[in-house]
């Protein structure tokens, strides 16, 4: 049975206005579906803002009507007001400034701007990124938050002991409006223990190693499990580990992951498992990683590459610095389009550091606040495209008559300047 506090009951009774009432109704429904016994206070919300494709299911309506229907599940037009906690936006359907460089029309950009203006009026900071943790959205240990970005949830829970679930997009808006989320799943300490142990019998050093490791573990992970990794010979960095979580959250749905000796809730294997026996055990070898590499489109040769998209998850400033160093004085091959994605706050640092100037002089385009997956946009006539991200390569494959190639950032940059894909990345 769900028990509510006096303040929560007041919201549900409509004493705090219609928006909070509807948000609390949905949070209560969600809590009852989960069989949660109470709610917890949320202090941060990372929200999927913008004129996203799926919103078109509501039909041709005003932005406020679409938000009421699609995000708050209300047929009645709700008065939008200031959110109850610190909010930041996730990726949107386009770069809000350079949208024309990614094939978006003025009409699409105007519609997106209307949505963003509406959210900004509700107090959402428009960081526009899937790496909120690189842009000031940093939940502390034990802090309850919501996020629409799957890999950010696993990363912030696992590395910082923060408490969040992979709630759907709508639940993020409900939680932001009423400041509550069901106290369930990773909001409760006992649920965070490891269930499946993976012994890593392969050297994991580079971003691509971590990307392939995440993709491989995800392929083998049953629903509702918490992986525990042992045997890692190298520590990750924030730059390499974001690939791991993004790839793992593509092929599976873990919200928590222990790296023994590295993450704070896993000082030892026993601690990670809470003294219990694991439900499953497996060893991951280099040949398993190679199998994933091939599934993703790695290791093949192509004489042309039409499109290379880099920056999933959005690049950090350090990755962008390295790209600028590589591209300095070089030219992108004729016939190859190169898009490099990051968050708008990071783009400002790039501008200040001169990296944008260097990268764009080569012919590559720096874009923010989106990616091919969230925008669904590709340059016209693309027949072959390459990614350094398992997440993009995996999701961009279905339903398109386009050859998807996968390789390291170095392989992608080399292809960008030669126009050829050598496939020599193994």
């Amino acid at each position, binding site marked *: 049975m769900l028990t509510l506090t006096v303040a929560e009951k007041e919201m549900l009774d409509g004493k705090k206005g219609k928006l909070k009432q509807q948000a609390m109704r949905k949070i209560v429904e969600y809590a009852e*579906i989960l069989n949660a016994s109470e709610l917890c206070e949320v202090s941060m919300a990372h929200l999927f803002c913008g004129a996203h494709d*799926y919103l078109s299911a509501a039909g041709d309506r005003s932005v406020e009507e679409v938000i009421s229907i699609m995000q708050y599940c209300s047929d009645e037009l709700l008065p939008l007001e200031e959110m109850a906690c610190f909010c930041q936006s996730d990726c949107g359907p386009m770069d809000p400034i350079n949208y024309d460089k990614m094939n978006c029309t003025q009409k699409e950009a105007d519609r997106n701007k209307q949505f963003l203006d509406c959210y900004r009026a509700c107090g959402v900071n428009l960081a526009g990124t899937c790496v909120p943790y690189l842009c000031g959205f940093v939940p502390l240990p034990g802090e309850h938050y919501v996020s629409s970005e799957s890999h950010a949830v696993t990363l912030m829970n696992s590395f910082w002991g923060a408490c969040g679930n992979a709630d759907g*997009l709508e639940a993020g808006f409900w939680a932001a409006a009423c400041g509550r989320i069901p106290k369930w799943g990773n909001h409760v300490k006992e649920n965070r223990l490891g269930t499946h142990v993976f012994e890593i019998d392969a050297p994991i050093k580079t971003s691509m190693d971590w990307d392939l490791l995440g993709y491989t573990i995800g392929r083998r992970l049953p629903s509702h499990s918490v992986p525990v990794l042992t045997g890692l010979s190298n520590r990750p960095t924030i730059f390499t580990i974001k690939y791991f979580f993004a790839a793992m959250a593509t092929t599976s749905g873990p919200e928590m992951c222990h790296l023994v000796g590295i993450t704070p809730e896993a000082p030892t294997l026993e601690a990670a498992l809470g003294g219990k026996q694991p439900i499953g055990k497996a060893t991951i070898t280099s040949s398993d990683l190679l199998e994933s590499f091939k599934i993703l489109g790695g290791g093949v040769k192509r004489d042309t590459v039409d499109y290379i998209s880099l920056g999933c998850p959005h690049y950090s400033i350090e990755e962008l610095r390295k790209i600028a160093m590589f591209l300095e004085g070089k030219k992108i091959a004729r016939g190859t389009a190169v898009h490099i994605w990051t968050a708008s706050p990071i783009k400002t640092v790039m501008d200040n550091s001169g990296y944008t100037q260097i990268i764009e002089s080569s012919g590559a385009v720096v874009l923010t606040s989106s990616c091919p997956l969230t925008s669904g946009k590709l340059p016209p006539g693309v027949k072959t495209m390459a990614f350094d991200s398992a997440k993009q390569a995996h999701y961009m494959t279905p339903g398109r008559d386009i050859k998807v190639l996968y390789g390291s950032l170095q392989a992608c940059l080399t292809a960008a300047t030669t126009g050829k894909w050598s496939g020599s990345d193994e």
Partner: protein
Amino acid sequence: MSNRIKGRGAVKGIAEGYAMVSGETIQGWSGIDESTGKIVEIGHPFEGMSMKGAVLIISGGKGSNGWSCHFHAAKLKGVAPAAMVFPKMDSRTGVAAAVTGVPVVTDLELDPFSCIKTGDYVIVNADEGYVEIRE
């Protein structure tokens, strides 16, 4: 009755239809075509099938946290499943249940993957909390 599996009604209501059963979950992004209800995830046992009017019996959600929004959009387009059954709830399926509003039964006493097959005709009674298999 022996062909009933008891569980907990998570979203109330009663519905019936042909089952789509998979111990694997489905991905939301690039997994569901929300305007037709078709499953487009490459290599998935449901690839090419439509979830419209079906009783969807799957293990949970995976992939993007956007999972629920594809079910929500499918509901508004009239191509959502008639009912959903999850042996165990997770946060992705929980929100999908809350936004879709179709009858949902969970916390099953038996493993549905060992006794319900795709194509079986099933009744989902979330008011009383069970799933029943008709021939």
